[in-house]
């Protein structure tokens, strides 16, 4: 094995699990140290991009990269570390959930069109995450926090069906402490200790009613949530060009060959997964 990046886009890099923790019910956070050429391959990974993780013996599946390349800088001669949130739903994710620290996985990427963070500079960001949809949004939040002066106001609306399904809870205070940053939380069903908003993220959004002036929104969550959030944003005066989403699709290659992930004429793996709602609206096919 060498340190060079692979020419074969179907050949994964090896990654070592350096942390496996419970993020929420049936959702684990995997901290993966990229070995050999993988560390270099992911040096330029941007918020919104994804990677294929292999549970060897089962297969691979795409996961949003849930951390920034910068925060995962190689230390002490090790490899770059990236985070992935994995919801246990099928055979590959079950295979991943069986793993512990020290086990190796495969990593291919980074793939996909990222969020246009450069274009977002100087603007107010409204970030809306539903359930595990928060994972690909985390590097957006980290990028803003780590380059605070480059961005305007940061408003985060974070939702889940139940408090046990909220992700990255240990970071919320850190987000709130950042200048000009507000965090709103909501759940569909509270538990006994819940003292934040109860209701759908669209209700919360309506209450918060952020201004569309010089703002962009970034939404990630189940398709139905993206749909209703988009409608609410329109009602609040946001133009489709100001609203960005990251869409999920069933994928097998991630590099625009296998044909599976198309939404109309666009491939979610290559043209997306990040799209503006203007682009989504222009697609022949609905993602719903």
């Amino acid at each position, binding site marked *: 094995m060498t340190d060079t990046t692979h020419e*074969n886009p179907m050949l994964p890099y090896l990654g070592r699990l350096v942390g496996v923790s419970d993020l929420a019910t049936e959702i684990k956070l995997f901290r993966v140290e990229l070995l050999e050429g993988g560390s270099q391959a992911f040096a330029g990974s941007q918020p919104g991009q994804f990677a294929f993780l292999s549970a060897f013996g089962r297969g691979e599946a795409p996961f949003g990269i849930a951390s920034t390349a910068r925060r995962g800088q190689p230390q002490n001669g090790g490899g770059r570390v990236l985070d992935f949130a994995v*919801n246990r739903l099928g055979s590959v994710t079950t295979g991943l959930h*069986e793993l512990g620290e020290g086990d*190796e996985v495969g990593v291919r990427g980074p793939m996909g069109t990222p969020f246009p963070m450069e274009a977002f500079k100087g603007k107010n960001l409204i970030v809306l995450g539903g359930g595990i949809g928060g994972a690909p949004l985390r590097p957006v939040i980290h990028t803003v926090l780590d380059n605070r002066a480059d961005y305007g106001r940061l408003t985060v609306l974070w939702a889940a069906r139940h408090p046990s399904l909220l992700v990255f809870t240990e970071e919320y205070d850190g987000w709130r402490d950042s200048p000009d940053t507000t965090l709103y939380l909501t759940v569909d069903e509270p538990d006994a200790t819940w003292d934040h908003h109860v209701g759908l993220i669209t209700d919360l959004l309506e209450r918060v009613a952020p201004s569309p002036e010089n703002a962009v929104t970034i939404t990630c969550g189940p398709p139905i949530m993206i749909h209703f959030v988009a409608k609410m944003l329109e009602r609040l005066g946001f133009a489709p060009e100001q609203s960005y989403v990251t869409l999920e699709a069933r994928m*097998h*290659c991630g590099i625009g*060959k296998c*044909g599976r992930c198309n939404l109309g004429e666009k491939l979610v793996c290559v043209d997306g997964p990040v799209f503006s709602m203007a682009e989504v609206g222009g697609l*022949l096919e609905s993602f719903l």
Partner: protein
Amino acid sequence: MRVLSRAELGAWLDALAVEKALLAPTEVESVVLYRPVQSSAEIAPLQGNASRPVLSIKEAFFPPTERLLLIGKTTGPGNGTGGQFRLRETLPEGEQIVFGVRPCDARGMRALDALFLHTQPADPYYARRRENTTLIGLACAEMGPSCFCKSVGGGPDDPADVDLMLTETDKGYVVQTVTEKGRTLLAGLELREIEGEMPRSALNEPVPIPDMLAWPPHFQDAFWEQSSERCLSCRICAYVCPTCRCFAVRDEALPSSQGEECYERIRCWDSCAGDAYRRIAGGHNPRPEKGQRLRNRYFCKFYYYPQQYGPVACTGCGRCIEACPVNIDITEILAHLVTG
């Protein structure tokens, strides 16, 4: 024109079959397929549409099942996903010649090249096979009843996508050298110069093909749901097609471990016709209805694929028409787009 007699052709192919893998139309039970042959005697009678193989040459470059990697476990329990691993890519080796390639099949390579080779990143498995393969084409004396190659820019005697083109005449097979690869294959072969004109193939009635931009306005037509009712959601049309290329990827256990290698990662043919094809973990499916899936097939061929990669993903070979058990006819679909 330079010609080879049938006997000379046979002898030449026999010689080639000794050095490299030779694939040619051959009868497998009652079906003609491009398969490896050891001698020219195994080649099926060449003319007429009945002798065109049921599958295209796609399988020589993009096989129904292909191993991508071997996965070896260096530590960790035998079954289960935990442990340390070593990966070995398994790129295809070996040169091959495909003989008797119909122009429609060769033209299919143009669509597949656009995807696998010319759109980054290039697919190394396809690229290797492509590099290591020489195509000897065979012109069709006439178009078959469901052929419409001419209408989509090809033609029954079109030499454009092969390395050598053979055309049968009563004086022998006329040989056209199309590429350097073809010229190299011919090296040392004596061809006879004769006078005469290249025969032209008999053509069918053209099939009107809608302009690419005619497709989007028809996306919501009830036509798709109506046409799909009889569709069985099998995969015949995708599998016989020279250009369909959807594939699935998975790891599977090797039948028996070879040292530490215990898994292989394979890809194999898939089709957008099935209802699970596009279902996301968690259950959401943007194409739950048959009509949406039928629509996706035809839009992909004539609109999505050219938008993404360039060529239209149809060579007018008509195999889907011949093979569909419920008479879903691509020319009927195209007619709706043209007249509707």
